[in-house]
């Protein structure tokens, strides 16, 4: 087992609205990422993915509030730290964060090179400007960005180029964890592909030691991250490798999500898309029992009163449902299940292992 870069234990955070109502957007999330690995987080909008991303940085400001739980980055718990300390010691060098609209956050009147200097000096770098420049050029080169970009203003760059530049600058201190929240969703497919390629290079070249990648686009996650967690109503409902999650989901919600995947590939046209009726619950008043029960085609009365815990199965996989894995697989095999294409090799043994 590799060194654990990020471990989160039962994290709970909430928003307090203008009307003093609580929104429990992250309600007991646990996860663990080892060095060199990446975790994808999927789920419909409103399930708390972006709030989790914000919460993981340990940097809280209104309306977001920390409630309880641990965020351990390479052995250090940052959950109780003061915002000022988090800003100085954690952001940028331990954890880097890229929000969806990151590219729009670049001040148009500054040169890209100035941003690099800012980041370095804000973190107490003693390097000379010329040394920083040299380092930045080398890093840009390694990531497939032309170093001339350093002399440009943000307005001179295309959307995709801006986003890749932001990613290169945000990770220039080689953080232990990169958290990317829909970093490519606003781009067209060709720019998206370049962003994804850069994320992969960052991991392969060791410029980031682990990554959390958030998107509702499952084919993208499948290609980018080693593991996938599916989030629903502020909690994870299933976790496993990307392969297990896409081809052998167990939780009915994960199953529904995988059934909504559209890819331009042979065999997918003939299988009917599955839609999950309804919408996620309001997180001001999360349901008492299973949070998915209202939309779950297999729910029984107990589901509405008894909240399931995360349970481990098949080695490292986890799911949150009152039904056994065996029972769920039985239910799926009678035709109500996923849009099945060819299964990747090895998945059958995985299932047999259980």
């Amino acid at each position: 087992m590799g060194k654990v870069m990020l471990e989160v234990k039962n994290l709970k955070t909430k928003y307090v609205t203008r009307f003093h109502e609580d929104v429990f957007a992250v309600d007991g999330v646990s996860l663990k990422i080892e060095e060199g690995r990446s975790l994808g987080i999927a789920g419909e909008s409103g399930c708390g993915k972006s709030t989790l991303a914000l919460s993981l940085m340990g940097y809280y400001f209104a309306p977001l509030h920390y409630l309880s739980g641990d965020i351990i980055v390479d052995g250090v718990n940052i959950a109780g730290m003061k915002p000022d300390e988090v800003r100085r010691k954690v952001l940028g060098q331990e954890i880097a964060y890229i929000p969806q609209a990151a590219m729009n956050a670049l001040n148009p009147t500054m040169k890209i090179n100035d941003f690099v200097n800012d980041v370095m000096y804000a973190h107490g770098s003693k390097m000379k400007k010329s040394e920083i420049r040299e380092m930045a050029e080398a890093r840009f080169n390694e990531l497939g960005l032309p170093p001339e970009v350093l002399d440009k203003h943000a307005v001179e760059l295309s959307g995709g180029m801006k986003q890749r530049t932001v990613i290169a600058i945000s990770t220039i201190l080689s953080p232990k964890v990169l958290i990317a929240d829909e970093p490519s969703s606003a781009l067209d497919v060709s720019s998206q592909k370049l962003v994804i390629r850069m994320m992969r290079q960052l991991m392969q070249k060791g410029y980031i030691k682990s990554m959390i990648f958030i998107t509702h686009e499952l084919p993208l996650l499948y290609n980018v991250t080693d593991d996938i967690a599916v989030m629903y109503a502020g909690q994870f409902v299933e976790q496993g490798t990307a392969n297990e999650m896409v081809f052998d989901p167990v939780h009915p919600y994960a199953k529904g999500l995988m059934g909504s995947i559209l890819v331009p590939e042979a065999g997918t046209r003939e299988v009917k898309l599955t839609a999950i009726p309804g919408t996620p619950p309001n997180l001001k008043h999360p349901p008492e029992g299973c949070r998915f029960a209202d939309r779950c085609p297999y729910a029984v009365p107990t589901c509405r009163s008894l909240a399931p815990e995360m349970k481990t199965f098949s080695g490292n996989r986890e799911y949150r449902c009152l039904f056994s894995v065996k029972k769920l697989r039985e239910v799926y095999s009678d035709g109500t299940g996923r849009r099945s294409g060819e299964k990747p090799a090895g998945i059958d043994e995985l299932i047999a292992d259980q």
Partner: protein
Amino acid sequence: MTAVDHVDFDFNEGEIVSIVGESGSGKTTLSKMLLGLISVTDGQLYFQGKPRDISSRRKKQEYWKNIQPIFQDPFASYNIFHKIDSVLLDCLNMRGFRSASNAQKVDMMTEACSFVNLKYAELTNKYPFELSGGQMQRLMIARIFLLKPKILMADEPTSMIDACSRATILDMLLKLRDETKMTVIFITHDIGLAYYISDKVYIMEHGKFVESGKPDDVILRPTQDYTKRLISDVPKIYEPWDLDAI
């Protein structure tokens, strides 16, 4: 500048066709021409076998009963000062139910809402901006349900939403198509969507169709470099996605 350059195509009743291209390929210009929102400088549009005539205001209104858009951004397509009832009432008026009884109108609006899993009673007196993105999108389909156009132009109806709500909306559109035999034109950059939903696919680059045909032919066996690139740009799950192929 020519945004759309000599394109030929025809759509049949009940058919679903997709026009696929990147932003800037001319898709949206083409959809506006079909809707009669911008003029065609050269060439002819035929509707139900006759040259389309939208030369007068009245003729235009008549044409718009038959062709209806669903736009990219649901928030942009509603007048934010109109309550939701009036959005739906407008549809009934357009279809000539202006003089129907109030109860009759409410019945029809209730039916339309329940078709898209919305509760009419919960929507009355609300403004569009009080709805979530998903509810807005479903409200747009409820409008289509009331208008029952011959042609529905869906200009990236699913770009802003997650795969899950996309599946729900596609389900509803297909159901509506089956019931009313309307023709659906998808204007999209989503090649996975086009592959799944269409009877016929047109690939558009720089205002021209570079390739068209059955989805299995165009998307599984593309002949044009542009089509190949569009396909290679999107992530796959059964075949490896080659990130280095540009």
